C-alpha cells in the first residue's frame, strides 16, 4: 500500500486525523490508507475471497491458468520516466514537478455518462462537505455525479458488516484488506459484481490506465474465483517505518541503534519523564520487523513453508521474542504513558510535539509530518531509521501484499453504473505527469493548491478537501511523488529499496485466499492478546497457551488446508 499511501494519502495523513495511537484501527487512522497492519496488526481481519481452482468454490484461491483467464491484459503506460526507478519492490519515485502546460491527458474526453453514483469509503479524520469544490471538479472532469459516503475509518469494519447485510448497498464500496474479517469475504462474493466481462483479457484496453495496473495487483483482486475488485496497488516492502526526530537526535548526538539491546539502551537514555519526554510509542510492529516475524497484514501471508512444513507466524520463536522485547520497552517506562491507553489520540502528535521521539507508522508519515511542520516548526526534522536486525546487522523482512484495498461494484448494477464506476477508476488510476493525476492529488489550482517556484503547494482548503476518497476507486502502479519536498521523496524511495533488499516473500504472497468459514474466527483474540502481553497485563506464557489452543481448535487442520492449497496452486514465494 505504501506507495499509494505515500503519494496520494500522505498529504491527508495529518496528525489531526483520529486514531488511537497504536491500535490497528488507530494506526490506519493515521496512515491513511493502508497498508495497514502490515507489520503486525492482527491477522484478525484478513481472509480474502478467492474461489478454488475454477470458479464457484467458496474458499481457496485462484492462480495459474484459472487466474490467467480472468486477469486483465497489461499495457504499460509511462508518461514521465520516474526520477528514481523502482528497485527491490520499491515504488517509483518522482521528485520533479511537471509544469501544468506539460501535463499529458491519459483519458480522452469525459469518460462518464453523467450517471449518479454512490461510493462508500473509509475516511480518517473529519470528512469534507459532500459537494465541495474538489468533489465537484472531479465529477465534472470524469463526467459522473458521484456522491461520497465517507465513513469513519476506525470503525469501518462494523459499518461494512451492517451495510452489506442491508438492502441498501452503495454502487461502489471500498473494502480494505484488513476489514475482510468474519463473514465479509462471503459478503464480497455475494454482493459484488463480476468485473470480468468488462476487464478480463483485452477488454481492459478500453481503460488504458486500468490496463497499466500491474498484474500482481489484479491477481489480488480475484475473489471467489471471479475478478471483482479494482485494486489500489502497493509496494510489497513493509510500510511500517520507525521514525525518529532527526533534529533532536542530532542536537543530543544520539546514535541510531544497531540492534534490539541498543534500542532499549538508547530509549532509556532519551526518556526523561520529568521533562515530559518519552523515547517511543508502541513499537510492536517494528519489533516484528526487527525479529523477522512473518507478516500479520493478511492471514495467508502469515503462513510459510519451512523445511517442508507450513508454519504460522504465531508459532515462531521470533514472534514471542518480539513480544517479549516490546514488553521490555513498556516495562522500562520508555513508552509514552498515553500509548498504554490507546484512546488518547495520535502518536504522531506526540512525536511532533517532542513528547515522544521515536514512533512507527506508515511510510507516508514521513512526508505528511514534514510538510505539516514546515510552517509550524522550522527546526523540525524527521527521518526513518533503517530497521535494525534484532541481533545486529540487517533484519529479515517479509513482504506485504501488492494490493490490499479494493473498490467493488454492487451486484446487479446496471451496465451504465458499472461503466461510470470504471470511468472513475480509469481516471484515478492515471499515472504521474497527467492532468488526471494532478487533479486527483492536488485538486484545482488556485483553490486547492498554488504553484510557487514551479512547485504545487496545497492550500489549507486543499489539505482539507483533497484527501482520501478518489484514489481508493483505483490507483496506478506504486509511486511516490512529492515534488514540493524532493529530498523526502528520495529518502522514502531509497528507504524502501534498502528494506526491499532484505525482504522475502512468504508462501502465499500475492494470493487472495478465502479460508473456510468455520476457521475464520480462530485468530480473533490474538491481536488483543499481543496488546495485553506487551503492556504487561498477560504473560508471554499465556500466548504459548493460546497458540496450543489455536492448534487444537483448528489451527492444525487449517495448516493441512493451506498445505493442500499450496500443493494445488504452487507458491509465489521467492
Amino acid at each position, binding site marked *: 500500500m505504501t506507495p499509494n499511501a505515500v503519494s496520494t494519502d500522505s498529504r491527508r495523513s495529518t496528525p489531526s486525523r483520529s486514531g488511537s495511537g497504536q491500535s490497528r484501527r488507530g494506526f490506519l487512522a493515521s496512515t491513511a490508507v493502508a497498508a495497514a497492519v502490515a507489520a503486525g496488526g492482527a491477522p484478525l481481519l484478513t481472509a480474502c475471497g478467492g474461489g478454488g481452482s475454477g470458479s464457484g468454490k467458496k474458499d481457496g484461491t485462484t492462480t495459474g491458468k484459472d487466474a490467467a483467464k480472468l486477469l486483465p491484459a497489461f499495457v504499460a503506460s509511462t508518461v514521465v520516466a520516474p526520477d528514481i526507478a523502482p528497485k527491490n519492490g520499491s515504488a517509483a519515485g518522482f521528485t520533479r514537478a511537471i509544469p501544468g502546460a506539460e501535463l499529458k491527458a491519459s483519458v480522452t474526453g469525459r469518460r462518464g455518462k453523467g450517471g449518479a453514483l454512490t461510493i462508500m469509503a473509509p475516511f480518517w479524520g473529519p470528512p469534507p462537505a459532500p459537494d465541495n469544490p474538489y468533489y465537484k471538479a472531479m465529477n465534472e472532469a470524469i463526467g459522473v455525479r458521484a456522491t461520497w459516503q465517507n465513513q469513519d475509518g476506525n470503525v469501518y469494519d462494523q459499518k461494512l*458488516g451492517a451495510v452489506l*447485510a*442491508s438492502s441498501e448497498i452503495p454502487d461502489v464500496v471500498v473494502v480494505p484488506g484488513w476489514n475482510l474479517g*468474519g463473514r465479509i469475504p462471503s459478503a464480497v462474493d455475494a454482493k459484488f459484481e463480476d468485473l470480468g466481462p468488462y476487464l478480463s483479457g483485452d477488454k481492459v484496453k478500453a481503460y488504458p490506465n486500468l490496463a497499466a495496473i500491474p498484474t500482481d495487483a489484479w491477481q489480488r483482486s480475484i475473489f471467489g474465483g471471479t475478478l471483482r475488485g479494482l485494486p489500489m496497488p502497493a509496494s510489497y516492502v513493509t510500510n511500517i517505518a520507525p521514525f525518529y526526530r532527526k533534529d533532536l537526535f542530532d542536537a543530543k548526538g544520539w546514535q541510531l541503534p544497531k540492534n534490539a539491546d541498543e534500542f532499549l539502551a538508547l530509549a532509556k537514555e532519551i526518556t526523561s519523564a520529568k521533562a515530559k519526554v518519552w523515547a517511543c510509542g508502541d513499537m510492536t510492529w517494528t519489533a516484528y520487523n526487527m525479529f523477522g516475524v512473518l507478516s500479520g497484514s493478511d492471514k495467508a501471508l502469515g503462513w510459510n513453508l519451512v523445511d517442508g512444513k507450513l508454519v504460522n507466524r504465531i508459532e515462531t520463536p521470533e514472534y514471542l521474542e518480539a513480544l517479549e522485547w516490546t514488553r521490555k520497552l513498556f516495562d522500562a517506562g520508555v513508552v509514552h504513558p498515553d500509548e*498504554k*491507553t490507546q*484512546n488518547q489520540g495520535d502518536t504522531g502528535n506526540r512525536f511532533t510535539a517532542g513528547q515522544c521521539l521515536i514512533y512507527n507508522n506508515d511510510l507516508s508519515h514521513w512526508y505528511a509530518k514534514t510538510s505539516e511542520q514546515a510552517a509550524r516548526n522550522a527546526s523540525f526534522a524527521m527521518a526513518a531509521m533503517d530497521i535494525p536486525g534484532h541481533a545486529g546487522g540487517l533484519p529479515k523482512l517479509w513482504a506485504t501484499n501488492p494490493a490490499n484495498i479494493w473498490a467493488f461494484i454492487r451486484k446487479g448494477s446496471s451496465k451504465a453504473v458499472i461503466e461510470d464506476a470504471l470511468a472513475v477508476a480509469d481516471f484515478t488510476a492515471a499515472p504521474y505527469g497527467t492532468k488526471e493525476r494532478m487533479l486527483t492529488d492536488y485538486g484545482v489550482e488556485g483553490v486547492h493548491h498554488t504553484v510557487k517556484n514551479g512547485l504545487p503547494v496545497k492550500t489549507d482548503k486543499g489539505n482539507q478537501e483533497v484527501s482520501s476518497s478518489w484514489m481508493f476507486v483505483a490507483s496506478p502502479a506504486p509511486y511516490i511523488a512529492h515534488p514540493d519536498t524532493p529530498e523526502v521523496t528520495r529518502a522514502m524511495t531509497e528507504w524502501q529499496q534498502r528494506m526491499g533488499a532484505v525482504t522475502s516473500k512468504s508462501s502465499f504472497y500475492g494470493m487472495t485466499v478465502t479460508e473456510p468459514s468455520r476457521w475464520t474466527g480462530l485468530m480473533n483474540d490474538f491481536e488483543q492478546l499481543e496488546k*495485553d502481553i506487551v503492556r504487561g*497485563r498477560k504473560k508471554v506464557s499465556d500466548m504459548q497457551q493460546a497458540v496450543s489452543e489455536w492448534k487444537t481448535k483448528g489451527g492444525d487442520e487449517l495448516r493441512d488446508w493451506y498445505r493442500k492449497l499450496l500443493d494445488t496452486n504452487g507458491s509465489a514465494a521467492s
Partner: protein
Amino acid sequence: MSTLDTKTAEPAAPAATARTPRGRRRDPRRPRTAGHVPFGRRLRRDRALLLMTVPALVLVVVFNYVPILGNVVAFQDYDPYLSTNGVTAMLESPWVGLGQFERVLSDPGFWHAVENTLVLFLLQLVLFFPVPIALALLVNSVLRPRVRAVVQAILYLPHFFSWVLVITVFQQILGGAGIIAQTLRQHGHEGFDLMTDPAVFPFLVTAEGIWKDAGWGVIVFLAALAAVNQDLYEAAAMDGAGRWRRMWHVTLPALRPVIALLLVLRVGDALTVGFEQLLLQRDAVGPGAAEVLDTFVWWTGLRSQDFSYAAAAGLVKGVVGLVLVLSANKTAHLMGEQGVYRT
C-alpha cells in the same frame, strides 16, 4: 408503567366508588382503574392523552418491539449475506435450535464478561447509587435560590459531556502523563498511572460515572423532595425534632418510594453497566478488566459478523434482566413499597 396510568386516570374518574359495576368489592390493594367506564367512552374521553402517547408508542414499537423479532437469528446460523436483504437472509439461514445458546453458555469469555458486569454493577450500586440521594438532600438544604441554581447547573453539566471527553479529562488528570503524575515527578516523586491499571479499573469506571451522571440523577430526587408537605417539617419541628430527626422521619420516608422504584429499575438493568464508556477504555486496561456483556455482544456480533451468537448472548442477558427486575419488584412489594408496578 401502570402506576403512571392510574395516576392520570384517577382524577378523570373521581366518581369511581369502591364498587365495580358488577357489584364486586374491589381489591383494596389494587389501585382504582377506569375499568368500569365503557371502553368507547374512555377512548373518547382520553383521546387527547392517548394522542399524546402516540409518538412515544411509535418509538417503542419501532425501536423496541420490532427488533425483538430479529431475535429469531439466535436460533439460527444467520448469514446476512445469503440474500439481497437481512430479512430474506433470515428466511434462508439454517436453524440450529439452541446451538448458539450452548456455545454462549460454554464460552469462558461470556462468563468472564458476566463476572465483570456483576462486579461493576455491585460496585456502582454501593458507591454510585447513594450519591444522587445525598446530593439531592444537600441541594435541597441550600435555601438561596441563586446559589442553588448555580450548584444545580454545575452538577448537571457533566451529564452533557460525551464519554470521550470525560475519559480524556480523567486521563489528563489521573493518567501516566497527567497533571498529578507530572507534578509529582517535578517534585522528585514517582509518577503513577491510574488509567491503565486493571485492578483500579472498576473504581475508575465508577468514579467517572459518578462525576458524569450523579448530578443528573439528583433531578428525580429533588422532584420528590419538592412534593414533601412543608407542614410536616413544621409539625416535626414543633414536636422538638432537630435537623437529623426531621431528615430521618420526614425527608427520607418521603423519598422511599422513589428510591425503591429506582433501585428496582437499576437491578433490572444490572447487566447493563455502560457500553460506550467501557468500549472506549477496553484497550487501556484490556478485556480482562473491561469486557462486560454489552461489549462482548458488540465484539462478537459486529466485529466478527457472528450475529447469531451475539443475539443469543443478548437474549440470555435480556432473560436474566427480566428475572432480576421481577424479583426486585417482588422484594419491593414485600418491603411494603409500590415498586415499579403491581399486578
